């Protein structure tokens, strides 16, 4: 079981914008934590910091108690291998086949990267890729080019790619923000089913309050780079949530309502 510990994270961009200020929280093994926040609240910066894609100004991220910023490249790869990531815009390699995209999920485990290329992939990896695709219900589309699929299907391919990793922790950055409500719901359901059946830990960033309420066991709220609250779902009233979207500026409020709840 993997644990994630974020300690006093701060990030100031070179242009002086403060993206994160003193953010601390823990995600315990087996938990499903949802982070809520509107555009520009620092969500994505936080997401990228967790796997060291973003240089921090101060603070530290611990994975299983190990500070990740000081890890060597090789050790960082070993940590990343255990963490499956799901992105807002899927990040498939669009002119390759669905099957090939899923195979690439094994890059961290295969003997060499070449073993994840369809031409050279060993039979067990090819079988596993088909099983992962089947888990997301897309085995019949394995041969298609990734860009021939709908948005919801592409996100499911991305989830299958992530399953190839056998992740212990799933990080999802707005996995349904680029999808229509119906496809979004299907993706969330699928993701949560997988999390339950494999007893994984999940840290999911969302901006839709209603979706967060439905799936999260614990909710963190980020506002202007600061952690506004961190509570179990049952303790959260609509009033607390409305705090998150409270704005001094009426025009801004309107635009957030459009984008968010």
């Amino acid at each position, binding site marked *: 079981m993997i644990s994630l510990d974020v300690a006093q994270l701060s990030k100031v961009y070179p242009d002086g914008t403060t993206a994160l200020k003193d953010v601390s929280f823990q995600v315990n093994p087996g938990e499903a934590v949802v982070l809520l926040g509107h555009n520009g609240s620092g969500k994505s910066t936080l997401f990228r910091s967790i*796997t060291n*894609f973003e240089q921090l100004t101060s603070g530290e991220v611990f994975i299983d108690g190990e500070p990740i910023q000081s890890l060597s490249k090789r050790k960082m*790869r*070993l*940590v*990343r*291998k255990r*963490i*499956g*990531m799901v*992105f807002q*815009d899927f*990040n*498939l*390699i*669009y*002119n*390759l086949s669905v099957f090939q995209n899923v195979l*690439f*999920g*094994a*890059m*961290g*485990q295969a003997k060499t*990267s*070449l073993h*994840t*290329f369809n031409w050279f992939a060993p039979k067990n990896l090819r079988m596993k890729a088909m099983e992962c695709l089947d888990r997301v219900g897309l085995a019949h589309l394995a041969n298609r080019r990734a860009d021939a699929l709908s948005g919801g299907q592409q996100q499911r391919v*991305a989830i299958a*790619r*992530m399953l*190839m*990793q056998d992740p212990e922790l799933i990080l999802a950055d707005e996995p349904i923000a680029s999808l229509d409500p119906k496809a979004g719901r299907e993706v969330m359901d699928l993701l949560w089913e997988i999390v339950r059946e494999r007893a994984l830990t999940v840290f999911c960033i969302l901006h839709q309050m209603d979706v967060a309420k439905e799936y999260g066991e614990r909710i963190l709220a980020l506002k202007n780079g600061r952690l506004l609250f961190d509570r179990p779902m049952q303790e959260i009233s609509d009033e607390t949530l409305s705090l998150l979207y409270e704005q001094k500026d009426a025009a801004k409020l309107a635009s957030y309502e459009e984008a968010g709840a």
Partner: protein
Amino acid sequence: MADQGKDRWQEEMPARAKRPSLGGFLLTVVVVAFLFSGLAGANLSVDRLFDGVLNLGHFTMQAVPPDTSRVPHVLGAIVETFEIALVGTAFGVMISLPVALLASTNTSPHPVVRTVTRGVVSMLRTVPELIWALVFVIAVGLGPLAGILTIIIDTIGFCARFFSERIEEIRKGPSQALESTGATQFGIIAGSVVPAGFPSFVGTSLFAVEKAIRSAVILGLVGAGGIGVELNTAMSMRMFDEALMIIILILIVVITVEQISTRIRKKII
């Protein structure tokens, strides 16, 4: 609307033309001077133009009908030209890909490596191909090898630059997705950068083949093998009918290659 009149907007209204800067004015004077001096140097006169037209007439009279008697021999030289272009481009493209990876901001191992590689590539491109051909003829002697080496250099100058531009445009997301699986730098490049750029690489390489065929024709003029050698001989021996035949064959080959390459490009992109 009280102060309407002639004087209104005098300050604000833009002038019809801006006064040129001193530098701009001097540059214009220098360029115009070169223009006139150049025209004078060309010794332009009505007589010479008239003679020129007459000479063209003579050339045409002697060249038509084209001499088909040496076609088999000429065809051999054309095939050699085509092979010089193809072999040169193939090796050039193979070298261009790693060079482009070293020269691109997002894939280069170190900024110094990137700057040096870019410098070398633009030097390869800046020196005209005929000069490379002359150098290689001295190095490896007359014949197709000098041509092939020249085309390789020329292709690297062209392809490495465009490959690298494409690589720098590639979206970061997919690479990051692979990185997040624990992939190595090699895996990330082979799995996301190269496939994403592939259609563009193929398109650029096909352009390079077209370019190489035209170059390979010219390279013969300095002895680097191929049809250019034949054309040069025919022209200097004033066998214009044979020269015309060679020119026609060159046209056919160039146009055919361009057609095929256009079709492949349309299919791939």
